[in-house]
């Protein structure tokens, strides 16, 4: 059976190379630069920001494994590596074409698969790189919500599907000139850097996964009370959050996709302030409850603020970023308790952080946009929200998009995980879960030399 897997993979790979060798694009970039010498700076800016976004993979890997138990660290690290690995290949094969290919009825893109033919062009490759790191981010978010109990095979397939289908289709609707971007209210559904497209999509697929999988052994006691399962390394989790925050400076400012919008400075500031406000709010809320300064929640709070400001960051002023962050702090704290109350087990808080706050970010655009920046452009039409005399139009588009997002992401998620469950079973055997996934699925304990207690 396993050999077959290996073979299947190689076959697929071979197929991948039945690609046209001719091209009509600009692979050397000479023409592009002649047409617009400013492109050189744009390429530098977008690539460097893209590198930062890719580095977020390290952040997720550290955060998630730090928040889980030592016996599952190898598994989490493998998942975080492989979703980027499998995701980028799947996205190269199909996903990218579905987002950015020539639009078909506002539903999907239909060209540029395998970056073959005309797609062999510096501009297309640049766009691919950017979209690819975003897709991988959406994919990796899920690994946190389904941590410590999902079978690895299931995870591999799932990541590919997210990068081939679930993410690209929705992203096409919003960013690829699809129907959501053309909604008749405000300027259509807007999501600057992906609070919705990336984070909420990832979060709600994760929610679906967490529901289908059910809670980890020991997460809820007989009488259904939620119990805490502390992470094995706070320093790893904190480092991961710092890396994510750092990477977010590529994620948000880079989304102008142009270095000639000096607005990037405003975006960087808003990103920072919202994260800070979210973190401080979460810290103080828990402090109000337990009288202790809870780092785990402060880390989630910072990420919550980052997620929430991702959609509006280009269209708002600093004070709004702070408000958005404070609200994000409330959302993440109550979101964590809500999931516990619903007996849904999300080991690292991916759903409240990315799912709930992703939606909040979409609404925030319709509320706080102040008309200083346009549709990825410095010229009119500018985006205006409720508070700045833009009326309810934009807010309606945002709400509409949010609803569609939840239906699509959560719906596809449920279906995907149900199918995987039917075919190969998504959940590991209880004894394997108790012993930890590292040994049985990977054979490699993460810290073989150190005793681990906490029975």
């Amino acid at each position, binding site marked *: 059976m396993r050999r077959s897997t290996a073979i299947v993979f190689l076959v697929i790979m071979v197929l991948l190379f039945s690609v046209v060798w001719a091209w009509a694009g600009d692979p050397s970039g000479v023409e592009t630069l002649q047409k617009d010498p400013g492109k050189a700076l744009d390429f530098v800016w977008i690539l460097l920001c893209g590198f930062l976004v890719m580095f977020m993979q390290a952040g997720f890997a550290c955060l998630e494994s730090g928040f889980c138990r030592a016996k599952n660290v190898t598994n989490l690290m493998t998942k975080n590596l492989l979703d980027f690995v499998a995701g980028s290949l799947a996205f190269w094969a199909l996903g990218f074409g579905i987002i950015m290919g020539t639009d078909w009825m506002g539903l999907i893109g239909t060209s540029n698969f395998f970056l073959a033919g005309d797609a062999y062009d510096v501009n297309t490759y640049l766009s691919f790189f950017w979209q690819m790191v975003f897709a991988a981010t959406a994919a990796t978010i899920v690994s946190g919500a389904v941590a410590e109990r999902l079978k690895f095979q299931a995870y591999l397939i799932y990541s590919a599907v997210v990068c081939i289908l679930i993410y690209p289709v929705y992203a096409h609707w919003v960013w690829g000139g699809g129907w959501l971007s053309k909604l008749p209210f405000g300027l259509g559904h807007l999501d600057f850097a992906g609070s919705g497209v990336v984070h909420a999509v990832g979060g709600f697929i994760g929610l679906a996964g967490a529901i289908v999988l059910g809670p980890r052994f020991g997460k809820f006691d007989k009488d259904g009370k939620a119990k805490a399962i502390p992470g094995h390394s706070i320093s790893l989790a904190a480092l991961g959050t710092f890396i994510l925050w750092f990477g977010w400076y590529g994620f948000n400012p880079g989304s102008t996709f142009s270095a000639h919008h000096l607005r990037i400075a405003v975006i960087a500031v808003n990103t920072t302030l919202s994260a800070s406000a979210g973190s401080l709010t979460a810290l103080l809320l828990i402090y109000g409850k337990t009288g202790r300064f809870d780092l785990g929640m402060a880390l989630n709070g910072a990420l919550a603020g980052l997620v929430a400001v991702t959609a509006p960051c280009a269209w708002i002023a600093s004070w709004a970023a702070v408000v958005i962050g404070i609200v994000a702090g409330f959302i993440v704290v109550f979101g964590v308790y809500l999931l516990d109350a619903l007996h849904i087990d999300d080991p690292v808080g991916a759903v409240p952080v990315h799912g709930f706050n992703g939606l909040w970010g979409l609404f925030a655009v319709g509320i706080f946009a102040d008309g200083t920046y346009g549709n990825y452009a410095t010229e009119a039409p500018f985006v205006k929200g409720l508070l700045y005399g833009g009326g309810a139009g934009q807010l309606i588009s945002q709400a509409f998009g949010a609803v569609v997002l939840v239906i699509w992401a959560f719906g596809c998620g449920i279906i995907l995980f149900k199918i995987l469950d039917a075919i190969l079973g998504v959940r590991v055997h209880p004894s394997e879960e*108790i*012993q930890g996934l590292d*040994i049985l699925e*990977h*054979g*490699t*304990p993460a810290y*073989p030399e150190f*005793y*681990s*207690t906490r*029975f």
Partner: protein
Amino acid sequence: MKEIRAVIRIEKMRDVLDALENNGHPGVSVERIEGHGRQAGLVEQFRGREFKVDLLPKARLDIVCKDEDVDALVKLIAEKAKTGEIGDGKIFIHPVENAMRIRTGETGEAAI
């Protein structure tokens, strides 16, 4: 006075401790050990190479109790720790000559 030393599966720890607590024998010392017996070791791998690990993680409970409590406690522990699979572990009974509670200086059975 006797000391009961029970080597059990780590995952059975919680149940046994709770059972002891509920039966009014809170006093216990727990150690994390590695054991080797009939049970086959694990096969681990690192960078593509497999290797056998013959020492398996186990938990050991040390419980000092009155002579008359021994049988009941052993029964209780064995019952809670048993899976019937190889690797369930063992219980050993050691003699103890005296005990002292540092806080109060009490000695003998009063100290247990």
